[in-house]
């Protein structure tokens, strides 16, 4: 058996954080199902962090599944591929859950589509050679990742090839595969870990080769024993190891996962790259394997549709560009007491008002919450109880930051390190006075004068 040259000496946890209601049981045991082909898809040209993709001046009339319809708009950018075969319609303007207005290419799928089984086999199924991987040049892997339009599928959607590009100034020695999925309710990553563990390991090994890393560590929270077992089996005989981390929110945040798994602290304002680590989500790892081994771009992803506000929570394999309404319908539709539809999980997700919004590469889940989930007490004055300080995983003083933001006292905001906040929501979750701490801090960060 191969010995990994880098062990995972992290203590398996981080300081502070919270233990919210998990809600994973709603969808954890629902095997991934294939979404029936929607009547229309909308493919936004900006689904990632960076420059929007650029559609050609004249669009082809016909879209072919897997064929590029908009090329990258720069180095930190990613192309967009048709997710189904069909007729290309007009370019329309869509509002994404995060509030950005972007162009999207409309595609009307042809009646003839691959069967659900064929689709499942193409994206998730079949064998993934985790051992005896064919030799690939590091540059060729990064190039394949770039051409496939792979971006972080955990939610942040940062173009993956940028992380893998070799950078002599900041050498990488570990690829950390993030399987924490610490957001309550979401189970998409969990299902992928159960149903395609060898694909994840293969993708991670390829990423490690591209980045020049000598070790691969897959980090999973202890509340997913079956996933840990599946990944351990898949990783046998490779340089990849599985590291169990405490079940705690926000374990999946890079600033928590990296120290918990590897014992390395990411400097404030820095990236995992600063401590020699590339972090990729399990879904991203699978996409890398698919891009390199099957030469297929990102056309589909797994999305959890869950919460007490839908009738039948599910994990769905969906084409990029499918409207949320189709996913919600596939999960049995909204219940009468549903009041909030969240893109992502409840801690950091965005509430959407319009279910015609399309799934993007970074859509990890749709969480539908009911009135009783959100029965928050009336806001009162801050009594400085300090519970926000007790839970902030970054060691900040949220109440001071929120007060400084509310009153525009920028020297206090800076002195208390407002820009270090990652908006994980632990403080607002905990606040007995129901103060919208994250909202205030976010506003403060946006309004903070430069310099």
């Amino acid at each position, binding site marked *: 058996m191969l010995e990994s040259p880098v062990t995972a000496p992290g203590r398996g946890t*981080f300081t502070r954080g919270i233990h*919210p209601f998990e809600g994973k049981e709603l969808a954890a045991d629902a095997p991934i199902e294939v979404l029936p082909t929607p*009547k*229309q898809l909308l493919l936004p040209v900006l689904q990632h962090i960076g420059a929007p993709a650029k559609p050609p001046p004249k669009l082809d009339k016909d879209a072919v599944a897997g064929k590029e319809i908009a090329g990258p708009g720069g180095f930190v950018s990613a192309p967009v591929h048709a997710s189904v075969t069909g007729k290309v319609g007009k370019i*329309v303007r*869509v509002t994404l859950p995060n509030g950005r207005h972007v162009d999207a290419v*409309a595609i009307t799928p042809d009646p003839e589509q691959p069967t659900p089984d064929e689709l499942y086999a193409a994206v998730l199924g079949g064998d993934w050679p985790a051992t005896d991987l064919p030799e690939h040049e590091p540059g060729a892997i990064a190039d394949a990742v770039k051409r496939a339009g792979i971006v972080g599928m955990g939610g942040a959607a940062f173009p993956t090839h940028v992380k893998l590009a070799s950078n002599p100034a900041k050498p990488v020695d570990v690829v950390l595969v993030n399987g924490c999925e610490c957001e*309550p309710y979401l189970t998409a990553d969990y299902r992928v870990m159960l149903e395609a563990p060898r694909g994840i390991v293969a993708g991670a090994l390829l990423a490690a080769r591209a980045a020049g890393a000598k070790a691969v560590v897959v980090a999973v929270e202890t509340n997913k024993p079956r996933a840990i077992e599946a990944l351990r089996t898949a990783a046998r005989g490779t340089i990849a190891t599985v590291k169990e981390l405490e079940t705690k929110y926000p374990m999946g945040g890079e600033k928590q996962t990296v*120290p918990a798994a590897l014992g390395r*602290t*990411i*400097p*404030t304002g820095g990236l995992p790259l600063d401590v020699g680590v590339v972090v990729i989500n399990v879904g991203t790892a699978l996409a890398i394997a698919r891009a390199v081994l099957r030469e297929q771009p990102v056309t589909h992803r797994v999305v959890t549709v869950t919460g007490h506000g839908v009738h039948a929570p599910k994990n769905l394999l969906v084409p990029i560009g499918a*409207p949320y*309404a189709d996913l*919600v*319908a596939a999960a*049995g*539709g*909204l219940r*009468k007491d549903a*009041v*909030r539809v*969240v893109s992502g999980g*409840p*801690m*950091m*997700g*965005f*509430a*959407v*008002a*319009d*279910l*015609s919004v399309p799934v993007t590469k970074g859509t990890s889940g749709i969480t539908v919450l009911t009135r009783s989930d*959100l029965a*928050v007490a009336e806001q*009162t*004055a801050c*009594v*400085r109880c*300090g519970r926000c*300080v007790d839970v902030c*995983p970054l060691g*900040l*003083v949220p109440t*001071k930051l929120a007060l400084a933001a509310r009153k525009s006292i920028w020297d206090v905001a*800076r*002195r208390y*390190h407002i*820009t*270090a906040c990652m*908006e994980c*929501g632990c403080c607002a*979750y*905990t606040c*007995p*006075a129901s103060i*919208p701490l*994250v909202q205030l801090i976010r506003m403060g960060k946006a309004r903070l004068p430069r310099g």
Partner: protein
Amino acid sequence: MTDTTAPKAEAAPALEVAPSPHAFDLDLTTRGMMRDVLLALLPPMAMAIYTFGWLAVLVVTVTTASCLAAEELFERLRGSPAKLGDLSAVVTGVILGLTLPATCPWWVAMIAGFVAIGIGKTVFGSLGQNVFNPAMVGRAFVMISFSKFLGAPAYQVADAAGILSQATPLTVARDANAVMPELWPMFLGTVNGSLGETSALACLLGGLYLCARRTASWEIPFGVITAVVLFAGLTQLVVTPTAIAAVPALRLTVFEHLTGGALVFGAFYIATDPVTSPITGRGKLYFGLGVGAFVWLIRTFSGYPEGVMFAVLLMNALVPLINRGTVPVPVGGPTPALAKK
């Protein structure tokens, strides 16, 4: 967005939007924290009734009613809706009542409650804005204005039977020739003193509950008690009969300091008021140590036998400074822009 082709599921409910997070700990509320404090005050309250009888009920009822009335009145004067439901005025009233002597006239207790809320809290901008502990502001006001009813002699009623006929332990300590009470009665609370403070045991019970619930931060009582143990312990080691002749309170042992007065009550119920104490754990520890040090200083060298009230008020004034000096460094170090400076 353009047309949607999605099938409408049922009669589509109206969807609302809001910024993240969309999950909350629904069990944590300001009112709940105040309820915790009231629960924790039950043991000292019970001990006060056991020791002082109906006098205890009378005083605490008057201060609580007075605090509630003052909250209602002053909030109306400010033109903001009164928030009696948050129970914060009840907490102030009960704590204030338990720091007064059983013999306190009802009208003095009433004035104390009014000042506590009016001057101690509302003038600063109500809940969360006050600099000084409201109950201690109210108590300090009546203590200075009506010292006849609240000074050390007021605690001892010559013609009364039982506990009220004794001098309080800390007053006894000031007479180098007087004999200190036994330790056990001081710990259990069958000695004279302010209503809620006499039983260190009852205060410890309620106080530990508060810390376990994290409604009170353990750093503060830990700091207070540590400082007193440190100062009193060192004194016990080096003190000489000559020194005691000059400053009789120097003879107080560590245990007498801990159980003879309001120290445990003050450490767990008064100093832990979150509004008037620092925000970070380190700040809270410094604050507690400061309160403890002042308690020992005042008890030993000032004209007052007890020092908890003034120690807390003094340290309240230093809280902004402590906060300024204990800004935590984020995980990962200071933000780069700050690190350069």
